[in-house]
C-alpha cells in the first residue's frame, strides 16, 4: 500500500482532528509546571504548598493519561486495568511509608541524633 499524504480516507474519518486540542493540553501542562516551581519559593505555609503540589501533579497526570494516552475515548476497561495497578502501587507506597514512619521503626542513629539536638538545644 502506498503512503498517502491524506487520502480519500478522510471521508471515513468521523472525528475532527485532535491536533489543536493536544497543543492546548500541552500549554496547560507547561503552565502548571511553571506554577509548581514558583509555588515552592513563595512564603506560604508548608501544608498548603504540599497539598497544592500534589494536586497540580495529579492534574498533570490525569491530563496525560486521559487525553494523550486516549483513555477518555477508549473502552473503559483500559482505564480500569491501569487504575488497578496505580491504586495498588499507591496503597503499597502508603503502607510502606506508614510502616517506616512509625515510632518503632525509627533507626537508632536518627533517634540518637534527634536526642542530641534536643539536648544541645
Amino acid at each position, binding site marked *: 500500500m502506498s503512503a498517502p499524504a491524506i487520502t480519500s480516507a478522510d471521508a471515513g474519518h468521523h472525528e475532527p482532528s485532535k491536533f489543536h486540542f493536544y497543543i492546548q493540553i500541552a500549554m496547560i501542562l507547561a503552565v502548571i509546571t511553571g506554577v509548581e516551581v514558583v509555588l515552592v519559593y513563595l512564603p506560604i505555609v508548608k501544608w498548603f504548598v504540599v497539598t497544592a503540589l500534589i494536586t497540580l501533579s495529579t492534574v498533570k497526570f490525569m491530563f496525560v493519561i486521559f487525553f494523550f494516552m486516549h483513555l477518555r475515548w477508549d473502552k473503559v476497561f483500559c482505564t480500569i486495568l491501569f487504575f488497578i495497578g496505580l491504586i495498588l502501587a499507591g*496503597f503499597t507506597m502508603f503502607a*510502606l511509608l506508614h*510502616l517506616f514512619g*512509625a515510632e518503632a521503626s525509627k*533507626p537508632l542513629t536518627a533517634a540518637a541524633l534527634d536526642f542530641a539536638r534536643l539536648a544541645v538545644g
Partner: protein
Amino acid sequence: MAEAIAKSAFTGKEHAHPAPSFALFNRPTTKTGLVGWLTTVDHKKIGMLYGGFAIFFFLVGGLEALMIRTQLIVPNNHFISARLYNELFTMHGTTMIFLAVMPLNAAFFNLLIPIQVGARDVAFPRLNSFSLWVWVVGAILLNVGWLSHFVPSWKFGGAPAMGWFGYAPLTSKTFTPELATDFWVLGLQVLGVSSIVASLNFIVTIINMRAPGLTMMRLPVFTWMALVTSFLLILALPAIAIALIEVMFDRNFGTNFFEVSGGGQPILWQHLFWVFGHPEVYILILPPMGYVSEILPTFARKPLFGYPIVVFSGVAIGFIGFGVWSHHMFTTGMGNVATAAFSLATMAIAVPTGVKVFNWIGTLWGGRIVTRVPMMFALGFIWMFMMGGLSGIMHSAAPADAQQQDSYFVIAHFHYVLIGGATFALLAAIHFWFPKFFGRMVPEFWGKVSFWIIFVGFNCTFFPMHFLGLNGMPRRTWTYDSNMGWNEGNLFASCGAYLLGIGIFTYFAVLVWSYFKGVKCGNDPWDARTLEWSIPSPPPEHNFAAIPTVHARDAWWYEKTHKDEIAKEKAEHIKAEESHGGIHMPDQSWYPLFAAMGLLIATFNFAQLRHPVMMLGNQVLGSHLPLALTGGVIFLSACYLWALEGPGGYHIHIDAEGKVTEARGDHH
C-alpha cells in the same frame, strides 16, 4: 459473529502480493524433531515443555528434601556439612516454588486456557515461546552453582545458601561474597521476566479471545483462577524485581540500600520481598483451587456449587493478598498499630478461602461421588489444605506467631498448604488431564496405590512438625542436641519423608508406563464438563475444527445435551472460516529462542561482572563486561528481528474426512 472468527485487520497483511520479508532466519515449518520443539509456538507443546522441566525439577527438589531429612533423622548427625545443608534448604525452597509448582501451573495454563476459551492459541504465540525459554535461562542460572561442587575451577562457591528468601544483610558482599548469591539474584530476576511476560499473554487471551457467547461468568473456574493469578503475577513481581535490583547494586556498585553503615535498613528488603512473597503464595494456590473446582464437579456428577461466589472469593483472595505481607514480619518490631493491622487483614483473608471450601463441600453434597484417582487427590486437597489453613489462622494471631515464627510450626503450615494443597491438586490435575493430552488412560489401581502412599507419607512427615515447632525446634538448623525432646518427632518425620518419596516415585513411574502402554481413550473418558473434552485426545494442532459458540457455563456439558443444535452451528462456523481463507495458524519462529540465549549469555556474565575471565587457568579478559554486553546485543538483535519478522501465519484446510492440508505462501 462470522467476523469474530475471521482474522483481525490489525495485522495488516491483506495484499495481493506477498510483503517483503526482512528475514534473517526463515520461519521454520517442521512440527517434529528438535527444531520443531525449539521453535514451537503451539501452546500445547509449550505446556508440555513447561511440564517436563517442572517435573524434573520437582524430583530434584524432592531429592534435596530427602537429603535434608536424612541429615535430621538423628541428633548431632554428620551426613552432610553445614554449608551443604544451607545450600540444600535454600535450593529446596527456591526449586519447589519457582522451578516446580510455578512452571507446573504454567504448563496447565498453556495446555488448557486457549482450549477452554475456545481459541486456537494464545494472543501472542511467539511471546509465549519466549516466556518458556527465558524460564529455562532462569532455571539454569539458579542451579549453575551446583556445578562448582563438581568442577573446582568454577569458583561459584556452590549453590545459593542464604535461604530462599535471601534476607539482607546476609546477602551483602560482607557475609556471602561468593558468586552463588549473584546467580540467585539474577536467576530470580530472569524468572520474574518470564512470568510477567507469560501472564500478560494470558490476561489478553482470556479477556480478548473468548469464543462467541463465552461471557466472563461462563468461563470455567480454572480459567478465572488463571486470570486472577496472572494479575497477581504482573502486580507482585515488580516489588521483588526492585528488591533484587537493590541487592544487586549493593553487592556490585556499592550502594547502601541494605547497608547499615551507609544509612540503609535491612528491613526494607524484608518488606519489598514479602510484598511480592505473600501474593506469591496465592499465585501458587489459586490455580490448584481451579483444578479442584473442575475435578470435583466431574466426579460428583454435579455442577460446581455457587459458581459466582467461588469466582468472587478467588478475586477477593487475590486482592486482599496484597495487604497482608507483614504477617511474615510480626517479630521484627514494627510497632503495635502495624502488627495489629496486618493481623486483622490476615484473619480477613481466611473468609473467602473458607467460603470456597464450603462451596466445594456443597458441590459434593448430594452428588454421586465417583472415587477415581483425580477425585481422591482432590478430596485429599480439601482436607489437607484446610489443615494448613487452620495452622495459618494460628499464625495470624500475632502473639501466637511470636512463639511460632521461625520454628518447625511454620514449616508444617506451609507444607500442608503447598503439598497437601497445591501438590495434591497438581497430582490430581496431571492424572485428570493426562488422557486428554496423551490419549491414554493411567491405570486406576496403581494410581490409587501412589495416592495412598503419598497421603500417608506426607502426613507422617509433616504432622509431627507442628509439635516439633511448638516444642521449640527452630527452622534451618543443621543439627540438634539429643536432649531437646525432638528425637522421635524427627525420626518419624524422616521415615515419613522416605515413604513420601516412594509414593512420588510410584506416581511418576506409573505415568511414564502409561505414556507407552496405557489404554487408549477417546475425547471424553471422564464424561466431563468443559470445552477441552470436546476435542480429540491428543488434540490436533488447530484445537477446534470449528470455533464453538458457548451457550452456558460448562459449555461441553451443554453441547452433549443439545447435540443437534451444536452440530448445525459447527457446520456454519466451518463454512464461515473457510470463506475467510481457512483456519489461520501462527507461524513458528527462531527468535524467542535466540533472544533467550542472548539473555543467558548476558546474565551469566553479568553475575560475574568484576571477575576476570579465565580459560584453562589463564586470564583472557579483565572482566566479564564485554561478554555480558555481547549477550545483550544478541538479545536486542533477536528482539528486533522478531519485530521485523512480523506475525506471519499460514492457513490450514480440513476436508470432509478430517484430513488437514497446509496452505503457505498465500497472504492473509
